[in-house]
């Protein structure tokens, strides 16, 4: 029979394989790959982790990406993009310009994100879907409280631990808790961050509607009725982030309608009154081609959101 004292340490899918680590207290650490299992003592496991960490950072091979600077979880999340990393640079930005992907999967300003709203008492952080994977015994509230205490006692930045943002949209890659605590304490203060610059404009927010660019009274045309467009439509419908006056796609004759909404020919976009056209597409080149097309149709640059 199983050990009741089991704590899931990590779980992932690598290709077709399910991989996970369990701590079976008093017994051993179990490392599972599909139906296979390797048992480690604590000492063996810690030694294994150190070796793997050394290998990972050697493979990454970037002098600035060191284990003491970023959480391993963050490195894991951005690992698919590390091959495209051009530069890491220190910059000063205002806290108010930082964007985050919130509970509704939209890209919003830091002040409108889940964590700042929780700090202000607008929402109950334990009731949100945010951060399902906390440390053992730590709920969202405790995690937030620990972070606030850390920021108050150690200040920012602490040693070489900087909030990390993407090149585009100042989207947070690492340090949302710290940024939210700083915003709650100091408002729209200027802080030093590290910016990860990737080639090919890798976007971390492809599937997140850029809600921080619009408000609920503004009218938008959604351009793209594929997967990204449908994600944006759902996010907008569930939050009322703005008003969709039209939904266009080059493939309109084939798609015809989605959720009762008629998909129009992009040539008809200029028949509508709108504040913005939001391009919903996963491919960087396609997005710029659509943007060029809209510019040729006479749509002002400032009304196009890529």
């Amino acid at each position: 029979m199983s050990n009741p004292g089991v704590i899931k340490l990590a779980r992932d899918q690598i290709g077709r394989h399910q991989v996970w680590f369990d701590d079976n207290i008093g017994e051993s650490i179990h490392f599972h790959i599909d139906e296979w299992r390797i048992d480690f003592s604590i000492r063996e496991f810690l030694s294994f982790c150190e070796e793997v960490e050394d290998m990972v950072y050697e493979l990454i091979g970037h002098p600035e990406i060191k284990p003491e600077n970023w959480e391993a979880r963050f490195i894991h999340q951005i690992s698919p993009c590390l091959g495209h990393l051009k530069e890491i640079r220190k910059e000063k930005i205002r806290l108010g310009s930082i964007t985050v992907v919130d509970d509704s999967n939209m890209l919003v300003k830091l002040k409108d994100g889940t964590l700042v709203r929780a700090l202000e008492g607008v929402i109950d952080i334990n009731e949100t879907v945010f951060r399902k994977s906390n440390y053992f015994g730590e709920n969202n509230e405790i995690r937030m409280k620990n972070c606030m205490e850390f920021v108050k006692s150690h200040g920012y930045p602490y040693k070489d631990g900087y909030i990390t943002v993407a090149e585009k949209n100042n989207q947070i890659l690492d340090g949302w808790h710290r940024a939210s605590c700083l915003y709650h304490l100091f408002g729209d203060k200027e802080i030093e961050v590290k910016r990860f610059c990737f080639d090919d404009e890798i976007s971390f927010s492809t599937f997140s509607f850029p809600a921080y660019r619009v408000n609920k009274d503004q009218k938008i045309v959604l351009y793209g009725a594929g997967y990204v467009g449908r994600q944006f439509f759902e996010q907008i419908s569930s939050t009322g982030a703005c008003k969709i006056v039209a939904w266009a796609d080059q493939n309109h004759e084939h798609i015809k309608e989605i959720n009762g909404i008629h998909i129009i020919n992009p040539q008809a976009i200029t028949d509508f009154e709108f504040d913005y056209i939001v391009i919903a597409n996963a491919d960087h080149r396609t997005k710029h081609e659509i943007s060029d097309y809209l510019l040729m149709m006479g749509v002002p640059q400032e009304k196009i959101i890529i």
Partner: protein
Amino acid sequence: MKLFKEIDYRILGCKKELCTVLCRADERKTLIINAESAGYRRKDHPISSDRSYTFGYGLEQFDIFYIGKNAYEVVYQIPCFSLTEYYLIPLDKCIQKRAWEKYILREGEKWVCEDVEMIYRIAISVFEENIFSPENREWIIGHKAILKEEIFDGMAKKVFFGYKDRLIERILAKDFDDIYLDYLKYTDY
């Protein structure tokens, strides 16, 4: 108890108006018939797979029967919460076997024997409640001789593995307050 007429059972514990009773899975139909004929109301148990709990390693779902103010929670293996959230498993088969091998009579009702009750109370304290309640502390200390018995030792090892000796040491020293955290921090394995 009319609910358990012609059924083998073992009471695991009784608190205020709730009794937890171990029955055999193959007698469940008889149990339900008894319940209906004796006027017991059957309701959905609050701990169920419909409410996002996972019953692992073949653990059967629980039943709960009400009559007047009293409730009888029926389990079909002695369950234990896991440290993995919303996950329950049966205690080791040696404990299940021991529960059926021996019983004691209290006021004419069959209870599990005291070594099974001991491991059950400790498991609830660590895995479900994360503290040792005053009632459990009192009972455990009152029956501390069981902690040194070989049969208990075997059962405790199947639940706590390498932590077993340290657990017993702490209990005998009445050091209940820190057992849960000490267990989580245990790394000598």
